[in-house]
């Protein structure tokens, strides 16, 4: 199982902000593919400019291995407080 979190306009776009995917995809790339297959518009937005990814609350670039229980957050450009 992996937990996926969407923030800001990404959550509005998808219509959800917190979802569990079981079993967990093996990698971030596999997770992106699964999300894009379920919702092509969301898949495109997740690859959009300025969208960052945090795995277990740490920003990652490129691909990453996902262990069971991993939390993956997609973060659109931050607005500041």
């Amino acid at each position: 199982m992996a937990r996926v979190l969407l923030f800001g306009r990404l959550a509005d776009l998808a219509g959800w902000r917190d979802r569990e995917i079981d079993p967990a995809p093996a990698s971030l790339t596999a997770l992106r593919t699964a999300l894009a297959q379920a919702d092509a518009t969301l898949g495109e937005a997740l690859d959009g400019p300025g969208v960052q990814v945090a795995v277990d609350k740490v920003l990652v670039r490129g691909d990453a291995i996902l262990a069971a229980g991993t939390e993956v957050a997609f973060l659109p450009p931050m607005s500041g407080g």
Partner: protein
Amino acid sequence: MITLTDQAFDPGALLTGFCAGRTETGAVASFTGLARAEGGDALVLELEAYPGFTDAAIAGFADAAKTRFGLQDYLIVHRTGRIAPGEAIVFVATAAGHRRAAFEACDFLMDYLKSRAPFWKKQHGPDGARWIEPTSQDRTDATRWDPPAQEPS
């Protein structure tokens, strides 16, 4: 210390607590950001944070600022959720031996919080809601603190 809260808070009560018992501080600067009504255009401001990520990012930045400016202490309280006009969004207080360090550190922390801190902000107005991104002024303010660009050697 940094706290995220979805409850309204009183900046003055925070300042009272922050100043108490400081016999060697000298200088406490504070900043309070209040939600503006924008003449009715902004009915409610909605701020989203990522708990555990947002507060860790702010604490890491603020601890570095504490060292940089030689602060004795700092306090950051940031509101999340739906915020009505006139309510406090953010409170930052800095304590130092002398006022220059306290002022500069408070200013520095606010520039970061307003432009680079991991929040997502939505403004609900009479014509619907829209997500807000940092203004160019916010970005300019934040770069005031960056080291000068290195010339290629």
